[in-house]
């Protein structure tokens, strides 16, 4: 079990001593490029068994929901846009969880200690996690588009006539809708920095405001993302831009900014 160290002595790079073929590669390193941080964060979000199960669940959920309008046509509008909306249902439920775990996982596992000693500019790590989450959200949108196309193809193959009402605006709206929900998860995760707590807070707050929205149109139209961000999904911007922006400020900008401050200031370990 014990390996002799003499042939491969780790030698300090700055010394004049030879490194015995044990060097780490290019020396005189500059700052870590942001692209590298993003790639590493992407790996961390996708390379564990639990992460893959969760992503598989997102995929299965997306496919499973698509079977509903395909197999039970009477329950859904047989239009391209309503199929695309169906693709988003499972995604916006689970993608925020994925995003939360991308932000909180290292705090809960405490491997954040290693990450911050490798890149002490913590805001860059936070930004890299944010970027990786957005990449994941975009990938999910692409996947959702493919599943929608498959669902539509199946429906048309069964002899149904579907209304081809899909515009670039709708596709953009779908992508933005997913990314907004991912950002909502990122923001809560960045602020709470604990997996269980962040997931609980996310669903409790969303549920609470959805509930309040049923008794107050003011809350529904300005705070409840189930209303405001659905306008984005439906490509229904006219007259809704202020409401959408306000809910973005409340659910993304403020918690993310507070999370950034907390990330930078917090004592780790």
């Amino acid at each position, binding site marked *: 079990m*014990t390996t002799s160290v003499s042939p491969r002595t780790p030698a300090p790079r700055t010394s004049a001593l030879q490194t015995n073929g044990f060097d*780490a590669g290019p020396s005189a390193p500059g700052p870590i490029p942001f692209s590298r941080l993003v790639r590493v964060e992407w790996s961390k979000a996708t390379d564990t068994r639990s992460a893959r199960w969760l992503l598989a669940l997102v995929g299965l959920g997306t496919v499973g929901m698509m079977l509903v309008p395909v197999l039970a046509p009477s329950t859904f509008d047989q239009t391209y846009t309503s199929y695309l909306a169906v693709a988003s249902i499972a995604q916006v439920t689970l993608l925020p969880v994925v995003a939360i775990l991308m932000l909180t996982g290292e705090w809960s*596992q*405490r491997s954040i200690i*290693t990450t911050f*000693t490798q*890149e002490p500019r913590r805001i860059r790590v936070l930004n890299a996690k944010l970027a990786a989450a957005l990449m994941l959200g975009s990938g999910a949108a692409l996947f959702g588009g493919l599943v929608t196309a498959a669902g539509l193809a199946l429906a048309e193959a069964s002899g149904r006539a579907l209304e081809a009402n899909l515009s670039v605006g709708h596709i953009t709206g779908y992508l933005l809708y997913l990314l907004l929900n991912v950002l909502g998860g990122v923001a809560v995760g960045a602020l709470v920095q604990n997996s269980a707590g962040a997931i609980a807070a996310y669903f409790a707050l969303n549920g609470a405001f959805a509930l309040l929205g049923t008794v107050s149109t003011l809350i529904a139209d300005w705070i409840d993302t189930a209303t405001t961000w659905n306008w984005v999904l439906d490509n229904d911007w006219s007259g809704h831009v202020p409401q959408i922006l306000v809910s973005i400020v409340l659910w993304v900008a403020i918690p993310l900014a507070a999370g950034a401050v907390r990330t930078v200031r917090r004592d*780790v*370990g």
Partner: protein
Amino acid sequence: MITTTALTKSYKHTPVVRDVSLHCEPGTITGFLGANGAGKSTTLKMIAGLARPDRGTSTVDGRPFVELPNPTRVVGMLLDASAMHPGRSGRATLTIAARMAGVRTGRVEHLLDLVGIADAADKRVGTYSLGMRQRLGIAQALIGDPWALILDEPANGLDPDGIAWMRTLLRDFADHGGTVLLSSHLLHEVQATADHLVIISGGAVVAAGRLDDLLASSTILVRSPDPGALAAALQAAQIDYVAGPGDALTVDICGGRVTTEVLAGVARDHQVLLSELRQSETNGLEQLFFSLTAAPAATAQEVNA
């Protein structure tokens, strides 16, 4: 070089670290010794930029840690071997560290081999023993080919073989000009590994210096066939002594002011015959450690004086 100046930190008004100043030179292993809760980990975390000091500064390679562009290439850290994702394999864990540091991933295989966990490299870290995690953590610290190492309780969980292996590795690292700062609550561990020692108790440094100096006896035993004449001579030379053991006298070295040479001179001047003159038996680091940490407030003054 690793330097701290008067690092001080409180948690909720309880002082955890008080005015801790360290100075670790290239080519040396500094043991940071203290009981659990003495403030070792907090000090190391402040050096690593993980905890914010209330006062004081620390530098690695002449710069604050958080200003190092790619710290992994300068200083390897092992602060908590249990702080790893249990679902990732040892190889994957090390590969992530390698990619962060921007080193060739071939180095991952070298290090897995070096720390002796190549056979378990594809097993998940969650299945590792603490000793294996320590080994993986040491590999992680070495990944960037750094010239300094900061290790918090690296011997924890290692079997005797593993501890011997780690000592050799750290000695090798220091002999090649590396700087090592390692903490431990185990006296014999530090005694066997370090050549410089900083003892911390209650958040404050109570002793610091070369291990040899700290281990050196602080008293000299002097014996004469005529104890009365010897005592008179010492009194005349204003050197404090206590009687014993036996008919010998024991003299405090007073921080190095009094040496065997000085005492021989006193004996000659007063024409007292000496039958024995030597350093007292050393009590070892253990006694030093316990004497320093048992009554920190009072002893700290004496040691620092």
